[in-house]
């Protein structure tokens, strides 16, 4: 009888010992040293004093935006803008390594919207808002010389080719889609694709793997042939800036005075952002145009509904980009015996104390977010598509050469071709 009790006690002791050992620490207590050995401390190098550098960044951004706006709207100094461009590449690019940037901050914004646990840092919020506010009042001076991505591409504009208008119009839909998908990805906490596919960050960091190096090199080559390819055909933040710029009361003008329609500026814009005077003869009768606009107006809600419906139906497909959803799927397949091989993620999951139910709830929540996001994104893309057709149908009577209210990035390359600008400079001198 006593023997059995002792046995039980020993078993209990072993279990306790094992449990204690599993805890990890203190299996081998720290020795008492006899020599005067001094134990070193674990070093913990601090990051750059972030609160101070954040203030410097925001100040630099504010100062840069103010300067760029004055230079493009008041001083009309292409040289000044060029210097600002170089400064931005050096400071925001090489010195601050191009991260966090305003273009990527869109995703932080979306992430904060979709995830209660994530709080948007103030500096990122200001990075997101400041250029929008400036553009709403002073056009896209941010793009001309402050944005490090734009700035580095601007320095690569040597002898750009002209992109045919039809191709350009089609390609200009991509930024809307990119903005939409990147926001959806960030909203569902599936990753920051704008950052991941940032082509120029590798230049700023001056280090990259082979794959990234090829990707970056390809973009550099394209940037030499096509002026600012990222800004025009990819940049998701540029979509928002374009809207702000369209509303802006102050815009860069080609001529400092009245346009004399001399056509000299016609080909001066490497970004195809000069609007020519409208042709005298209308390509179609007024009635025909009105009819088409009527059709498009009716089409807006229908197209929005159809594309929203279609994308929301794709929720399970789209949500596979999310690692949690992928893990939940893998765990489900393993549990049902449909797959034999386990993955690193599923093994790790099983070694931890999260339950399968918790994982499934989390996964379903994300898929749900994808369904709602799909509706919004689909409706948005549908609207963009119809509005693009709309803008092709609308004809405004216009006699002068003016900068494109949406796409002009305030670089000032057109000024030097204008004879009236020459006159102004001589008068100034």
């Amino acid at each position, binding site marked *: 009888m006593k023997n059995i009790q002792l046995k039980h006690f020993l078993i209990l002791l072993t279990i306790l010992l094992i449990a204690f050992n599993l805890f990890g620490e203190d299996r081998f207590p720290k020795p008492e040293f006899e020599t005067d050995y001094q134990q070193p401390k674990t070093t913990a*190098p601090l990051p750059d004093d972030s609160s101070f550098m954040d203030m410097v960044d925001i100040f630099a951004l504010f100062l840069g935006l103010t300067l760029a706006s004055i230079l493009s709207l008041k001083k009309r100094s292409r040289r000044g803008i060029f210097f600002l461009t170089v400064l931005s590449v050096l400071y925001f690019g090489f010195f601050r390594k191009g991260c966090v940037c305003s273009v990527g901050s869109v*995703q*932080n914004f979306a992430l904060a919207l979709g995830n209660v646990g994530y709080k948007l840092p*103030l500096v990122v919020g200001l990075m997101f*808002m400041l250029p929008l506010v400036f553009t*709403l009042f002073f056009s896209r001076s941010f793009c001309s010389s402050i944005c490090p991505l734009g700035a580095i591409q601007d320095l690569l504009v040597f002898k750009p080719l002209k992109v045919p208008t039809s191709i350009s119009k089609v390609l200009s839909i991509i930024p809307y889609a990119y903005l939409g998908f990147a926001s959806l990805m960030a909203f569902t906490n599936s990753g920051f694709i704008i950052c991941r596919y940032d082509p120029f960050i590798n230049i700023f960091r001056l280090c990259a793997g082979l794959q990234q190096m090829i990707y970056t090199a390809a973009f550099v080559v394209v940037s030499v042939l096509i002026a600012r390819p990222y800004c025009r055909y990819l940049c998701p933040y540029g979509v928002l800036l374009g809207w702000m710029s369209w509303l802006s009361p102050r815009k860069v003008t080609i001529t400092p005075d009245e346009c004399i329609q001399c056509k000299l500026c016609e080909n001066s814009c490497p970004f195809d952002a000069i609007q020519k005077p409208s042709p005298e003869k209308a390509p179609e009768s007024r009635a025909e145009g009105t009819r088409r606009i009527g059709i498009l107006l009716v089409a807006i809600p229908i197209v929005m509904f159809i594309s929203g419906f279609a994308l929301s139906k794709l929720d399970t497909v789209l949500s596979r980009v999310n690692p949690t959803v992928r893990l939940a799927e893998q765990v489900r397949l393993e549990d049902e015996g449909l797959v034999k091989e386990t993955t690193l993620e599923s093994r790790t999951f099983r070694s931890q104390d999260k339950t399968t139910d918790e994982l499934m709830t989390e996964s379903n929540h994300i898929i749900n977010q994808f369904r709602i996001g799909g509706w919004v994104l689909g409706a948005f893309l549908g609207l963009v598509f119809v509005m693009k057709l709309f803008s092709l149908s609308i004809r405004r009577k216009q006699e002068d050469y003016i900068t494109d209210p949406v796409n002009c990035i305030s670089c000032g390359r057109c000024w030097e071709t204008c004879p009236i600008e020459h006159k102004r400079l001589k008068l100034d001198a």
Partner: protein
Amino acid sequence: MAKDKKITRRGFLHSATTLAIGAIGGTMIAKSSKDNTVWQIDPDKCTQCEKCATECVLPLSAVKCVHAYDVCGYCELCGGYSTSDATKLDTAAENQLCPTGAIKRTFIEDPYYEYSIDEEKCIGCAKCVKGCGAFGNGSLYLQVRHDRCVNCNECLIAKVCPSDAFVRVPAKKPYLLRGDQGQNT
């Protein structure tokens, strides 16, 4: 006349957008956190999957092994230093667990040895962390080193980490250290 009307329409939209941006911006600033965050590894969640060594955007990962000396037992037989099938407990390369020989072993007094990490050589593979956690006190563990980390907006390792060990921590307290330093800082 038509021109005037157009200006007012765009002007109206402009004012409306200004208000909207003001409202969004105001809410955002009110809700935003004043503290910036940096990336760090929670050593209690880390499962030593070795992805830190390969997934960082830097060619040489910003994740390194660090050593909490006051947790260490200073053993001669160290699960983090020697391979499990080591024939001798010496510093010969074939007996070392670390693939790059980044752990330095120094004799202190019989029978104790100090182990320190040469960060220039460490690739953050966590092989030693696994060994130390399995057979020792768990004094070796991974941390993001902030003199190297470029603090990407979204950390690529965090996205592939199978155990959610990558967390955002306040920039003012950028490490999750073990031992007495962990309690103090």
